[in-house]
């Protein structure tokens, strides 16, 4: 696997919503989306296995998002990884590594997607996840602006997630 190659893709139907403050499933012109509120933080969670051909580099998470109403402003997105290594992690408790984040500005045309890029360096930021191990990826819109500026009043819609080797 070379740097820059896609490792895994998640779409809204793969979401495993947390028990509270979850992004809600919706459709936009028949496209499944996950709605993230404009005021309260909401999250989506995806489970995957890091492919065996992952070569040990950092990870880049791409979020493909739209906005229901806004065509200006800035939203703040975060992502965190939880390594679910066999023989070690007790899944009865969450153990996500620290969130990494990035801003994503609405496109000037509502309905056109924006690409949000969140990078993880290899090691602690990606919870030391290794090839062949199961993991969860948590996506959060930091709508209350705790970690970064989010001034978009209305919903954002997550269309797809790509993880590539940086």
């Amino acid at each position: 696997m070379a740097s820059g190659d896609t490792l895994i893709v998640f779409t809204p139907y793969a979401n495993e919503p947390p028990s509270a403050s979850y992004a809600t499933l919706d459709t936009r012109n028949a496209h499944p989306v996950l709605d993230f509120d404009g005021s309260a933080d909401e999250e989506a969670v995806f489970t995957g296995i890091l492919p065996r051909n992952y070569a040990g580099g950092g990870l880049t998470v791409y979020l493909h998002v739209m906005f229901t109403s806004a065509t200006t402003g800035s939203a703040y997105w975060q992502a965190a990884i939880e390594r679910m290594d066999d023989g070690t992690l007790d899944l009865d408790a969450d153990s996500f590594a620290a969130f990494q984040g990035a801003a994503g500005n609405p496109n000037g045309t509502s309905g056109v997607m924006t690409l949000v890029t969140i990078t993880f360096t290899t090691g602690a930021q990606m919870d030391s996840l290794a090839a062949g191990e199961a993991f969860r990826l948590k996506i959060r819109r930091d709508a209350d602006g705790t970690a970064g500026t989010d001034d978009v009043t209305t919903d954002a819609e997550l269309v797809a997630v790509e993880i590539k080797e940086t």
Partner: protein
Amino acid sequence: MALLSSTIKQALRAEYGQKLSERRESFNLTKAQLDAVINAIDGWIDANAASFNSAIPQPQRGLLTAAQKADLFFRVALARFGG
């Protein structure tokens, strides 16, 4: 009448944002800009509450509760401005 608390105003902003999102209605005010609008409306209502009340004829003014007057104000405003 006291101005709305910041908690109530934040809830108002959140509720309005959800309503706009459900309608997929174009909206580009930032949260801070919308907060300023809500503050201005709240302040205007506070400053003009007595005038509004005086505009209601008697004996209706004395028969209606404050909540009923507010409800009627809301409905008339929506009817006038197409909300």
